[in-house]
């Protein structure tokens, strides 16, 4: 029997090529989107899954409730791990993890800038390291031991055995390679290639007392038993820090599940939001494709009426017909899945480029995705086929003989089209908003120049000879200005502190300010405006203990006349700069405290002319290497760093827009199919109307009006839904575009134009037919 059904299904596909093409195209495109979205989601969900203990690991986070509703940070003081382990017997393991940033690593004559990570030995038992050379037990039992990754071993030592080889860090400290571990996966958030004992950190930060309770900069990880009641444990540790940390600022502690590190931002949002958004788009797309199938199948019911009537007369039960039609739709879906797999494989490269992923072909056929997609396809097939199956199987032989109408309920079809259009309009609306937000972020005036600013990290030698270097660099006509600073402007400050002592603060208020250093010529280099007082100048030796604030800080401190006010009882305010976005646009402009402390200068920023960058960079390189020959010259342009900062937002935006456009496209082809059907069904009517004197325009209007009405209804329903969704999404950004009335009008217009374009061709074709042709079918 199934064979007979499949035969009929195949013949129907071949006989009605146009409709089959529409159904197959929409199901295929729909499934391609679902495959690609599944790959993306799977990739995001797989992040850090390589760590076998991931279910039992937690990160201790700081909850700062001083301001507003509280903000969470993933940082803890260094002594915390050890004391917590002693205090709570539930803790199986505890370890510290500190991302030490980029350092110069040298072996023989090769020097590269590499990311160095400081860890406790217990981290090796918590995270999963696959040891290729050396033993876990002895890998970090010596402060001069260093664990390197496989790719680093190859980079520095080629085919030689890397064990016991020496690596010199910052031309200062010698480390012996004690082990080689397998590289972490590409998408891992633990992307370091060098691991050294936490204790060695002090060596690299001589100015800082690393082991104090006030140094909130370390990640602390805990391993807890599987059955632990996290809620109860969180209660236990909430005020644990109080006994060690007795400052007026009272932080509390909380745990964040290791599996949430990548997916959920501690303060809300995160990748999970996009997983839901893309998941929702996948569902939208499949529903749209299913609606196409339902609409076309029921619309074409009249064509199949005879077959159904005859089958019933020959003894077919309703059930067997339902099975037949469901077999057909499932058959088509599976056929579409096969094509979709091919298309997805062909598109994978492009998809990787758009999404910034590195998914390879083998993932397409992994043991999770294949069965999942097969189930999704089955459900799609059953869903798409359900209404037509039950509707068609209920057609009676008498209806067929009497030639009664068997084209399904027009009301239901209208509801389905409206539903489809609501989804499309929501997507159009969202696409416009997402694009506007991307444009806004990419073009927003940050309050400083980020173009043509070259950054290079400071090292010991540059630090020592900075004045000479600056002086020499500024001799070049293509170099405008040179300064040093702690921060990549527009990306982050270096830290924050509470100001509770300032002239005029009589009620003991506290204000959290972000900290940043900036040397003489900082304003000139970045073209930041000064609104009051002056910036640091070399001739004022006391400026090393002075402060410059931004407008937000002046406002937060409520200073009427800020110049001269003493902060922290020692830093007089000498100037106020205009607010600029010193952090990413996801953060509002917060109070900023700029100071001049050589110990906190990390980067040299050089403003160059854009005319001949290659030559200018070459000059900079020569000059710097002349003064600092023992460190490699590496640089980055600030605007490139900005691009990479917003890369993921832009990638997600592009991905979202691509899927939305495909969804809208699927709606369109369904609409073309439906318009064709409607025009065909009304052939006689069109003929009669033309004979009675109707013009082509009247007919086109009549045919299009049906759809226009549906589009208008859909807009009215879709707008508030889209507005709510986009409003919620925009809340992730401190700086955001507004959802203006133009977006409503534009999405309405686009949906109307798209619908009209889909319909008008068929309408015109029907309206310009010779009326005799129309009536000949009767």
């Amino acid at each position, binding site marked *: 029997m199934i064979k007979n059904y499949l035969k009929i299904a195949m013949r129907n596909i071949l006989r009605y090529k146009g409709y089959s093409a529409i159904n197959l195209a929409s199901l295929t495109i729909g499934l391609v989107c679902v495959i690609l979205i599944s790959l993306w989601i799977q990739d995001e969900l797989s992040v850090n899954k390589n760590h076998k203990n991931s279910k039992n690991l937690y990160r201790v986070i700081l909850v700062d409730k001083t301001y507003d509703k509280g903000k969470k940070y993933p940082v803890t003081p260094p002594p915390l791990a050890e004391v917590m382990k002693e205090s709570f017997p539930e803790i199986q393991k505890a370890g510290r993890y500190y991302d030490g940033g980029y350092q110069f690593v040298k072996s023989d004559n090769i020097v590269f800038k590499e990311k160095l990570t400081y860890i406790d030995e217990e981290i090796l038992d918590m995270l999963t390291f696959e040891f290729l050379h050396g033993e876990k037990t002895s890998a970090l039992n010596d402060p001069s031991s260093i664990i390197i990754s496989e790719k680093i071993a190859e980079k520095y030592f080629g085919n030689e055995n890397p064990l016991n080889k020496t690596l010199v860090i910052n031309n200062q400290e010698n480390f012996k390679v004690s082990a080689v571990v397998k590289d972490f996966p590409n998408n891992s958030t633990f992307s370091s290639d060098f691991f050294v004992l936490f204790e060695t950190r002090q060596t690299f930060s001589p100015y800082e007392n690393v082991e104090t309770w006030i140094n909130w900069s370390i990640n602390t990880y805990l391993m807890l038993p599987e059955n632990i009641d996290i809620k109860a444990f969180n209660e236990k540790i909430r005020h644990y820090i109080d006994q060690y940390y007795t400052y007026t600022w009272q932080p509390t502690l909380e745990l964040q599940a290791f599996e949430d590190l990548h997916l959920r931002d501690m303060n809300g949002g995160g990748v999970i939001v996009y997983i839901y958004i893309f998941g929702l788009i996948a569902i939208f797309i499949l529903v749209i494709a299913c609606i196409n199938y339902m609409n076309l199948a029921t619309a074409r019911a009249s064509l199949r009426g005879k077959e159904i009537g005859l089958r019933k007369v020959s003894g077919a039960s309703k059930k067997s017909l339902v099975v037949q039609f469901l077999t057909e739709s499932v058959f088509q879906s599976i056929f579409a899945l096969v094509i979709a797999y091919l298309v997805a494989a062909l598109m994978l490269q492009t998809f990787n480029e758009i999404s910034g992923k590195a998914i390879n072909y083998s993932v397409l056929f992994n043991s999770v995705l294949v069965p999942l997609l097969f189930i999704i396809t089955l459900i799609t097939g059953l869903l798409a086929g359900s209404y037509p199956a039950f509707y068609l199987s209920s057609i009676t032989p008498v209806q067929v003989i009497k030639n009664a109408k068997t084209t399904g309920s027009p009301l239901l079809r209208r509801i389905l089209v409206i539903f489809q259009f609501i989804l499309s309009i929501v997507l159009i609306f969202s696409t416009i908003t997402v694009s506007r937000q991307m444009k806004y972020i990419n073009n927003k005036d940050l309050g400083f120049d980020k173009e043509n600013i070259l950054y290079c990290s400071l090292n010991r030698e540059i630090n020592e000879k900075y004045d000479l270097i600056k002086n020499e660099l500024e001799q070049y006509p293509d170099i405008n200005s040179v300064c040093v600073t702690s921060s990549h402007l527009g990306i982050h400050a270096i830290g924050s502190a509470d100001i509770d002592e300032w002239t005029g603060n009589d009620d003991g208020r506290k204000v959290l300010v972000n900290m940043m250093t900036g040397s003489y010529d900082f304003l000139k280099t970045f073209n930041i405006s000064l609104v009051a007082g002056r910036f640091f100048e070399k001739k004022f030796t006391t400026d090393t203990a002075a402060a410059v604030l931004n407008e937000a800080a002046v406002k937060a401190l409520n200073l009427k006349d800020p110049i001269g006010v003493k902060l922290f009882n020692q830093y007089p305010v000498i100037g106020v700069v205009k607010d600029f976005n010193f952090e990413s646009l996801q953060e509002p402009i917060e109070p900023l405290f700029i100071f001049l402390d050589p110990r906190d200068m990390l980067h040299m920023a050089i403003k160059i002319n854009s005319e001949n960058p290659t030559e200018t960079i070459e000059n900079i390189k020569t000059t710097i290497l002349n003064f600092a020959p023992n460190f490699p010259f590496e640089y980055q342009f600030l605007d490139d760093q900005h691009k990479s900062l917003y890369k993921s937002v832009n990638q997600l935006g592009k991905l979202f827009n691509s899927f939305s456009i495909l969804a809208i496209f699927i709606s369109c082809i369904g609409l073309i199919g439906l318009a064709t059907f409607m025009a065909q069904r009304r052939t006689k009517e069109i003929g009669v109307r033309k004979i009675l*004197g109707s013009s*082509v325009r009247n007919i086109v209007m009549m045919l299009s009006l049906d759809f226009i009405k549906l589009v208008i209804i859909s807009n009215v329903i879709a707008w508030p839904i889209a507005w709510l969704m986009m409003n919620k999404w925009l809340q992730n950004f401190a700086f955001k575009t507004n959802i203006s009335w133009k977006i409503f009008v534009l999405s309405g217009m686009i949906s109307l134009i798209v619908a009209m374009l889909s319909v008008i061709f068929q309408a015109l074709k029907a309206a310009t037919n010779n009326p005799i042709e129309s009536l000949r079918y*009767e």
Partner: protein
Amino acid sequence: MSQKELIKTVDLIKTYRTEEIETLAVNKVNFTVYEGEFVAIMGPSGCGKSTLLNIIGMIDSPTGGEYFFNDIEISKFSEKQRANLRKHNIGFIFQSFNLIDELTVYENVELPLIYQKISATERKERTLKALDQMNMTHRKNHFPQQLSGGQQQRVAVARAIVADPKLILADEPTGNLDSEHGEEVMDILTELNDKGTTIVMVTHSPSFADYAQRVVHLFDGNIVTENMKEKFRV
């Protein structure tokens, strides 16, 4: 009978071309209908009667020859010009009624008046009058499918006459009706003709052709005989 020519064709030709063959449906037909006449066109299937009627009704255009309607040569008219002339002068009655299923009886009859941009009040008046003439007022809110074949054809006739056309073209108006209903339709047409409407009717039935004053026989696209009745029906 007035001697004014309402329709006159001179060497009228209509050919249909498919990919391989060219069919001559109307072959140099010279045919005249005078105002107030009732003409029946007869002939075997495929002889070109419906094609001729369609050209006369301006819903199809000739391939060659001339066609004068009310002394205006219209064979080269555009579709728009023909539509304009058609809607003011010609009413159609088809074998399969061709009522629009989605519209009620009243709306179907009213349709030609809408396309003539006649005011709503006048439309109502004329529609009800036409329905009344056809005894269909009581069914005005029904849909075509709720009516019998005879009733549907009466609605179609009401629609054909509502705009008060000079000419009614009827393509096998009784073809889908039983003899009783067929005769009823023929009586209506005769009555309209008596009131001055020119009627050209295609039919297979000699008995219904008998209602006409003149019968034209077509064969292979040519007029073979033309019989003028000696005695007009009263």
